[in-house]
């Protein structure tokens, strides 16, 4: 079973491309949250985005995921230029190609685990792929908890529901914004291991913002940001390497 319908043998292509992307916020014109950033995220890869506080990593993620619009430059998501799109069209494109895992799990308390997992597809007006959703729930270890309400689950379980929800729609890319931020160490590790497995076994593409070198070490590649600009990257990083680089950047 593959997550994205494409041949595993084909050369990896970039699912998300940011070209010369700048972002400044009105009223804060002097500060550029992103300054002419060009970066691509390859299909079937796990990328971590790191940087000190205020380096622009969340802005990068928001622009890449179509949650925010860049001031300049272009963003290609699954081959489509989304930088010119406006709401609510943007949501429609995002809904079709992107899954999200956030620090806050963003589950709807009123809905059961099952309804939460299928919610994005239902909002998209698609007929949900229930077999796949059941398999994803089983993979994240929540088989049999379909009827539970988010409030009855632990934080780690809730984040796994969020992960299942992100995967259930077979997105081209999953964006994570500090997905382990609200979790304790071991629960966080479980969630990262799940992300890794989805990349390895199903060819999923994951882009994750984090400030934790240990979390970043689960990725294939770490992209560093400082003051809104790219500050190099690391391939197949270890936690120690990442820490060292971070210390250099903060200095």
């Amino acid at each position, binding site marked *: 079973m593959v997550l994205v319908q494409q041949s595993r043998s084909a050369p990896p292509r970039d699912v998300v491309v940011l070209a010369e992307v700048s972002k400044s916020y009105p009223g804060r014109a002097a500060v550029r949250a992103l300054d002419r950033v060009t970066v691509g995220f390859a299909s079937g890869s796990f990328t971590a985005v790191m940087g000190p506080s205020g380096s622009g990593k969340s802005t990068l993620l928001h622009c890449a995921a179509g*949650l*925010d619009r860049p001031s300049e430059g272009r963003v290609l998501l699954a081959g489509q230029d989304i930088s010119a799109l406006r709401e609510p069209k943007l949501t429609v494109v995002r809904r079709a190609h992107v899954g999200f895992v956030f620090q806050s799990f963003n589950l709807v308390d*009123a809905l059961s685990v099952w309804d939460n997992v299928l*919610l994005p597809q239902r909002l998209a007006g698609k007929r949900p792929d229930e077999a796949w959703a059941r398999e994803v729930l089983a993979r994240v270890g929540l088989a049999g908890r379909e009827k539970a309400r988010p409030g009855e689950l632990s934080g780690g379980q809730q984040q796994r529901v969020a992960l299942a929800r992100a995967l259930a729609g077979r997105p081209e890319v999953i964006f994570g914004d500090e997905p382990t931020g609200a979790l304790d160490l071991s629960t966080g590790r479980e969630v990262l291991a799940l992300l890794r497995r989805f990349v390895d076994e199903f060819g999923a593409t994951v882009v994750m913002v984090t400030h934790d070198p240990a979390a970043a070490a689960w990725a294939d590649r770490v992209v560093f940001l400082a003051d809104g600009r790219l500050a190099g990257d690391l391939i197949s990083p270890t936690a120690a390497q990442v820490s060292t680089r971070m210390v250099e950047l903060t200095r």
Partner: protein
Amino acid sequence: MIIKLAAGTVRRRRGAFAGTFLTAFLAVALIAGSGLLLFSVLTAGPGADRFAAADAVVAGDRAVVLTTEQDKGDGEVKVKTKSERLTGAPALPAELVTAVAGTPGVATAVPDAAFPVAVDLGGVPVRAPDRAAVVAHGWASAALTPYELTQGAPPGPGGVVLDAALADGLRIGEAVRVTTRTGARDLRLVGVAAPATAEGVPGQAAVFVADAQVGELSGLAGPTAVGVRVAPGADAAAVVAGLQQRIGGAAAVHTGADKVTADLPGALPDYIGAISIFGFVLGITGFAAVFVLTGTVSLAIRQRLRELALLRTAGATPRQLRRMLSLEIAIVTLVAAAPALPVGVVVAHLVAARFRDLGAVPPQFTVALNVIVLIAAVVVGLLVTLLSTAVAAHRAVRIAPTQALRETVTASGGGRVLRVVVAAVLVAGAVAVLGLVPLGGVYGMGMGFVSSALLLCAVAALGPLAVGAVTAVVSRVVALSSVLGRIAAVMTRAESRRVVGVAIPLTLMFAINATMLIDGEILTRVTADQQAARTASATVRVAATNAPGLPLDVAGQVCELPAVTGSAATIGTRVIVDLGGKPEDYPAQGLQVSGEQALDLGVTAGSLDDLGRDGPDQATVAVSGPLAEERGWKIGDRPDFWLADGTRTPLTVVAVFENWRGFGDLVLPAELAARHDPRGLVGALYLRGEPGVAEAVHAEWPALAATDARDPRGGTADVQNQQAAWELMVVISIGFTAIAVVNTFAIATSARRSEFAGLRLIGATAPQLHRLLGLEALVTVAVALVLGCLITGGVVGTFSVAQDGQWRLFADPLRYLAMIGGVGFLGLVAAAVPARLVVRRRSLPGQA
């Protein structure tokens, strides 16, 4: 520390408190405004002092006073004194005037016979400005004010002097017609007089006739009051004491400001109706304000559970949190009260002005500013907010600190048993009110309101239990519509507490206002039905156009027209009944019939033929069904009554009748009514006869108008004034409750910002959220309307059965649907606007 935290929270998070602020502002303003109005009518001055030039005035009783003693068993005797104002004044015996004049220290004793008259010039009524009462006296009374001639001469026999306020446009020497209960006479205008005092006699216009003609014109056996001037050098207090001793219990001596009460009651401003209206206004606004305020405060607190949990993690004890919440709400309420008080004063003035125009309050009514009332309004507002904060905070502050770390913050439900018990007690109260108080009587409307208020409180106490049950049904219907419908259904079922918070104000709005409106409509309809039934056999209804009515002898002449085959003359009056120690004033009619039946009172027992046949004193009465039932009167009973002038007399019950609405509860022989009512004119004369009877009447008496007897406009103007005042009140009530509804939706929606942001992130578009919220609002509004219709149905149904035995859910189906549609539309709009403000169509989820 807590004070700083509370003040800081309020200052920084103005938005979060805006809803509470607005509600507190409106509540305090309305309570202050209606409180001022009630205070003003309760303390309204007794009217202008026509006896300004007299030192003391001797007069008979102006009220019926009953004293009952109740032995409470433990040797203690409770004495209750209740009184009811008379509408007329008894004539004083001639020997009393002699006795007053002969009292040592009395320089002069001026007898004053005050009697209402109607003046017209060639059939056109001569009216005083501002609906002032037109009251006639003998010329000797002019000295009591004093009135002084500005033109012409004092009236001799056949002559009349008019108040300057009446004489406008009239010429000395013209003949004017003066109508009293003894007949209509043409008198020559010989002079114009005006009060010589600075303040004058506002609210009254005087007509002076020759002293020798007073008896003939007024039909009074003696004066209604005697004005006394104390001899120079005499001790006024001693003279008054001497007077009172000399006249004994036959009359009372009035001095100072109390002199006014010796005037003719009909000449003084009457605040009785206004007191009940404003009392009702205060009751309704007070209830709505307390209810809405409680709801808003607890909604606002529930939405801060997360913040409270965070403070608990930071080490705040529940006690500290309670203090913080109380302080916050106190600050908000007091800040809201500051602008609310002046607004309340303005509202009171506006309502007073409107009521003056409508004639629901006397024209001289003014709003009295009273600091204590204003302070009380603030105190009430403060108490309500503090109490509801205490109740809402009770559970909220016990929130476990760990809740702060969780994504889902829920207040523990609990209190199921308590809720059910409280609701059961409230429902039992409502059932008791509906079942035990005779809703057909004067308290019907008020009790209808009280019981719907109790039922509303029961629904609010049941809260999630009641709302949850209805939501479960309604949401499943909405769920059929679409995917969003299913989500909305699930959300409303899961968040039943939020649905409660928003639905209850809507239920309040519908239940209170619909109950009042429909009860009013049913009364109007039942009254119109009974009016139609009464007059079905009459051909025409004759009324005077130049005066409030026609003298009984003129009515007699009309009935003798050859075209007339049957007649019924009615004289409106008041009769006071002893309701077990409480004197109660009832509308009554004097009735004189001839020939075929022209007025069908729907007699159920006895016969109207016996009315007035009981010897020369005609001491008989017919009683309405409800009154006969309430007092347990049977045909042949002989209870005591007080007639309009205070004469106490036993009357034999000869008939019980059904068609009393818009007519009166008691029917007396016409001559008895005319003899004891100060006005004593035939207000409506129903004739049965050949076609052409109307023309025949008009040809003979041009001042009489004969109209179709079935014309629904035959009701009294009084009733219409009260109805207009009532409708104005409903408008105020609708306005307030509507603002409360909008406010609650705004609070509930704005508190869900983060939830909406989450939904946006997982792929909901802004329009989808708008639709989702619209569907949720649809469920909420439908739930509110179902509950509102249940409450209204119970109360209105019982009320309607009490009126005429017929069960009704509404008076007019279209108007009922319009009410439902109006409230529903308001709810949906109130939900849609904040939804569109919080989730903008083009907003990006990343910025949410």
